[in-house]
């Protein structure tokens, strides 16, 4: 799956684009629209899990927390008196660090808009609407040409990799 991004100038174009994509085999659960706050997107598939930064932040916190925990565990293993910090303790320190890091960063991140969409932020603030569609990798070219052919008002804005839980 690849996530294609399009920028639409207004709601009417967005509705048309979403209808076209649905008619051409993309189900609604694979479509997302993001607009600036206050814009009425009734009837369009909303951003859902893409709206906030929970998952990307969770992934970052998990990775860095885990690395810090493992580092501290290893440090303790070599600095502490023998027998106090075993291999299991190092592993547990890493897991604790990963869990705590993911939890705290994820909860903090859920208060912000999705950091993966930063490059579209200025366009969204100008009133344009971001439409994202998850399409099978082999069909990327087909959907690109379909949109450029039938929707002249829509700007193709490149790929967006789907968020990974653990980077």
């Amino acid at each position, binding site marked *: 799956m690849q996530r294609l991004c399009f920028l639409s100038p207004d709601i009417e174009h967005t509705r048309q684009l979403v209808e076209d994509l649905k008619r051409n085999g993309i189900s609604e659960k694979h479509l997302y629209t993001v607009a600036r706050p206050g814009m009425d997107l009734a009837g369009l598939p909303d951003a859902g*899990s893409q709206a906030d930064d929970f998952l990307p932040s969770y992934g970052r916190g998990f990775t860095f927390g885990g690395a810090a925990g493992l580092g501290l565990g290893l440090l303790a293993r070599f600095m502490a008196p023998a027998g106090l910090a075993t291999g299991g303790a190092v592993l547990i320190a890493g897991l*604790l660090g990963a869990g705590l890091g993911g939890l705290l960063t994820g909860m903090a991140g859920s208060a912000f808009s999705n950091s993966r969409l930063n490059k579209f932020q200025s366009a969204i603030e100008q009133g344009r609407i971001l439409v994202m569609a998850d399409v099978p990798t082999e069909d990327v070219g087909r959907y690109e040409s379909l949109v450029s052919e039938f929707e002249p008002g829509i700007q193709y804005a490149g790929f967006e990799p789907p968020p990974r839980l653990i980077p």
Partner: protein
Amino acid sequence: MRREGAFFRNGLIIAGTLIGLIILLVIVAKMI
């Protein structure tokens, strides 16, 4: 509707992480 689904999933992840952390803390407590 999707928004609620996303909140539910985030809640599940938070709950799962918390349960994992509690299990780890119990293991640590038993080790000491």
